[in-house]
């Protein structure tokens, strides 16, 4: 414990800016992963325990394409689209067979894929740590805001994530497809009776969720190191985010992700060894006081 460092930082504007920015990028990456998780849960009522693997694939795809083509935009695209395809195959081929089965079965299928995906990555890319490196376009002078250092890449990352949040929120609320998805979440039997292919919607939602996680992985690739087990810690954190925010709530995922991001970035100052523990503690406190999360509704 190092409370002096924490109070010292809270008193300095430069340190505050730095920590808040770093909290925001952690939070935004988590949001992209968690929002996919929450979407899949909201529509399919399935907890996708293998969601972290999509994040991992996103990062590896982005790194590979970036090394081959040198184009950052192409790398991001590869991360997002590649994982969307994997999500679609995973849902149509495997998850769709355990709908309506025990929660245990669904968890097990996902658990099996966590093991399989990690080993597949180990086979293809090797077990050691990899890094993608920062694209040249972003290797410029950082911005200084109130004395705090803010790399331009961080701003891009936050911007992309916020844009995704807005598009997703508006898309679900306003467009026809969004309405069909919400209807399918509410009453799949009725939607299917109206002649809409629910299997297609389920596959689509899974692909969308996978795409968001893959995008998060691709965005994280320049600033994080890549390793076969990297999906898991992200998965656990995004679970915490969805549970804190309330399963199925997009706004909840955003708020939850930012809270966890800030807890992490300030926690490393005050409790360097117990930062992870702080998150779990926070989750426990939220769940004890509000069992369905901050924005969750009681699921019947």
């Amino acid at each position, binding site marked *: 414990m190092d409370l002096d460092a924490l109070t010292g930082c809270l008193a300095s504007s430069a340190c505050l800016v730095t920590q808040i920015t770093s909290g925001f990028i952690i939070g935004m990456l988590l949001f992209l992963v968690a929002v996919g998780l929450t979407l899949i849960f909201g529509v399919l009522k399935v*907890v996708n325990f293998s969601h972290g693997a999509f994040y991992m694939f996103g990062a590896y795809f982005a790194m590979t394409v970036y090394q081959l083509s040198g184009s950052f935009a192409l790398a991001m695209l590869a991360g997002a689209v590649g994982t969307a395809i994997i999500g679609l195959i995973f849902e149509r081929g*495997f998850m769709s*067979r*355990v709908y309506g*089965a*025990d*929660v*245990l*079965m669904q*968890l*097990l*299928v996902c*658990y*099996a*894929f*966590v*093991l*399989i995906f*990690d*080993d*597949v990555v*180990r*086979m293809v890319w090797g077990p050691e740590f990899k890094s993608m490196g920062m694209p040249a376009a972003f290797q410029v002078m950082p911005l200084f805001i109130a004395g705090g250092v803010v790399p331009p890449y961080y701003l891009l990352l936050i911007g992309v994530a916020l844009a995704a949040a807005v598009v997703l929120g508006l898309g679900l609320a306003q467009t026809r497809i969004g309405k069909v998805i919400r209807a399918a979440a509410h009453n799949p039997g009725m939607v299917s009776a109206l002649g809409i292919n629910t299997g297609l919607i389920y596959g689509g939602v899974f692909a969308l969720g996978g795409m968001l996680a893959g995008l998060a992985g691709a965005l994280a690739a320049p600033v994080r190191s890549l390793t076969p087990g990297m999906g898991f810690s992200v998965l*656990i954190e995004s*679970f*915490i985010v969805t*549970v804190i925010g309330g*399963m199925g709530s997009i706004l909840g995922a955003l708020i939850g992700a930012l809270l966890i991001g800030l807890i992490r970035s300030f926690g490393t100052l005050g409790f360097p*060894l*117990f930062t*992870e*523990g702080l998150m*779990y*503690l926070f*989750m*426990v406190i939220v*769940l*004890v006081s509000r*069992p*369905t999360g901050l924005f969750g509704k009681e699921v019947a």
Partner: protein
Amino acid sequence: MTELRAEQGAPALDVSRTEVKPRRNRDALIALALFVVLALLPMVFSSKLLLDFVIRCAAYGLFATSLNLLVGYTGLTSFGHGMFFGLGAYGFGLMMQKTGVPVPVAFVATLAITFVVALVIGAICVRLREIYFAFVTLAFQMLIHSTILSWVSLTGGDQGLRGGIPRPPFWGIDLSNQLHLYLASCALLVIGLLLMRQIAQSPFGYTLRMIRDNATRASFIGIDVWRAKLMIFVLAALFASTGGMIMALFVSGAYPEFAYWTTSGEGIFINMLGGVTTFLGPMVGTVLFLILNDTVTRLTEYHGLVLGTVILFFAIGLRKGLMDFAVEWYAQRRNGPGGRG
């Protein structure tokens, strides 16, 4: 799976106390016979590997069977049961390393610690349902795991509890002798299984099945669902902790992985493998899992790939564990094709 459970829960209504007693005697006899067989084993086969295997079966078997009391009997999908396995291993290991108390005292004290911790954690967790229960147990487990990692001065951090666990002889039992450790592990396993069997067959056990099948109805007829869930949560934790203690003695240490999510995942997998609707399913699952694990580790470095494929086969192909499959097959054969029950 749900229909199976409903069938199994049905006879609960006409269980009277007179019926329970002969069954108790029969179970005790079976347990005694099992222990005698296990005790004779080293005289027939003089393989150290076999003894090690049985000791590991005892540790994992107690863990998995106790998890089934939650998952199969009460419908509580705990994803954090490994924390009590880890708690047992660390509690016992630390007690022996730091205090020098006799083994039985450390054993009882570790159970007491587990009891208190499980009571506090359980009181919070069992209020939540299904997926929220799974997550909050997972979170508590990770909380304990990160405490183990960060409290380096006490637990050795990610290096684990090393330097060996002292095991002074007591009552003529010397646990540093492999044969003694083997016999003690077998005794703990058999006693543990017998006790868990009693719990499962008691009126309380039937209350648990009722909560699993219809919690609302259970609370309508006056059962305190929260209390019953808490009781089984704590009881299951005690048996998992015992498994952890056997493991600590076996590896002469304790490692953070014991309390990591993978241990809980393995526990769930073992239950799935063996089946959750029979009492001995998890035990069968344990033996299969350990054999599978040992073989796969020897054959390939990608053992997640193989293990994952096997899990997929059980989850998507069979949709139930081996014992469940066998029991159903037997019932079908006995009643002729098409006829069930």
